[in-house]
């Protein structure tokens, strides 16, 4: 039964002559001894043979002349319409990626330059003076200022203040 199931899956390839030589020999041996698979094979063969023998009509010169005339008319109608469908330039991703990369580069460059000109209140302290100033501001906050992961840094800044005062 398992062999018949495997054979069923190979029937199409067997008829299409796309099995390997070894598989083809196995299939032939199985078919010699299995009437069910043999019948299934001949049924499939009949279907495919009939499909292959289906003729596409050959319409003749007059048909192709009409076809060409109709095609020219339809194409001219489209090309002269307000929304003229001339061959459209294709959109290629490669130049788009290149432009995007250049734009990102310039944004990063200008962004870093712009960042350095921001008022100190809008960015992290960049030097000792600013750090001290920030610390003082933190001390002057009413209530409990929520110190987060920078709590250790804050304490270090307090120590620094004492040292500066005592210096």
């Amino acid at each position, binding site marked *: 039964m398992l062999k018949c199931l495997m054979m069923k899956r190979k029937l199409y390839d067997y008829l*299409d002559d796309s099995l390997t030589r070894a598989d083809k020999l196995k299939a032939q041996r199985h078919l010699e001894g299995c009437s069910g698979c043999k019948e299934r094979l001949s049924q499939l063969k009949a279907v495919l043979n*009939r499909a*292959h023998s289906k003729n596409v009509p050959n319409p*003749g010169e007059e*048909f192709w002349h009409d076809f060409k005339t109709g*095609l020219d008319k339809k194409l001219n109608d*489209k090309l002269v319409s307000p929304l003229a469908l001339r061959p*459209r330039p294709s959109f290629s991703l490669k130049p788009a990626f290149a432009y995007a990369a250049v734009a990102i580069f310039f944004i990063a460059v200008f962004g870093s330059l712009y960042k350095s000109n921001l008022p100190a209140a809008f960015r992290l302290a960049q030097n000792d003076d600013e750090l001290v100033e920030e610390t003082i501001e933190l001390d002057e906050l009413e209530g409990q200022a929520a110190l987060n992961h920078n709590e250790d840094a804050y304490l270090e800044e307090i120590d620094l203040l004492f040292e500066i005062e005592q210096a």
Partner: protein
Amino acid sequence: MSFASTVSDESALIEDVKSGRRASFDILVALYQHKGFGIAYNLVGNIEDAKDVLQEACIKMYVNINGFEARARFSTWFYRIVVNCALDFLRKRKRANKVWVEVDSGDEDKKASLEVPDVSFEPARLRLEKEFTQKLEEGVSALSKMQRLCFVLRHENNLAIREIAQTLKCRPATVKVHLFRAGENLRKRLGPYLQVEGG
């Protein structure tokens, strides 16, 4: 003419079409119209509709030619357009289970779109063969979209599996699975007729 020179001629034609040259477009259409017509006919089932589908595909080919990349095969790119146009056509017409069979009425310009019963005497086997062909058409129409496409392109248009995979933008293994399932579904559906066919 060698294969290489044929390919380079075609590439030159494609470049001309990209420049908007209509004469080169006409040549390109003439090169692929028969094959494209065969695909359209096998999908929509009659000559007039196949003509409309092929015209639509050629227009789309012209408009989108700049989207064609030279490293791909033009034939598979164009066949994909034909397939998509045919599917759009079928969707619009809502012909889910309808089969149109061309019958030669004697007038080459006008082909009947409905099957005319043949009342003349004929052997039973011949009659059954005609019914078998019609049932096969109905069976193919009833397949799922991908099974039908793969089956029609492979067995009615003789495209290679790799070509079908490129046309439908899937892997060759996927095409094989669809072909296997289509064959199995048709075999089951056409059981009674297959005994007459020698199945």
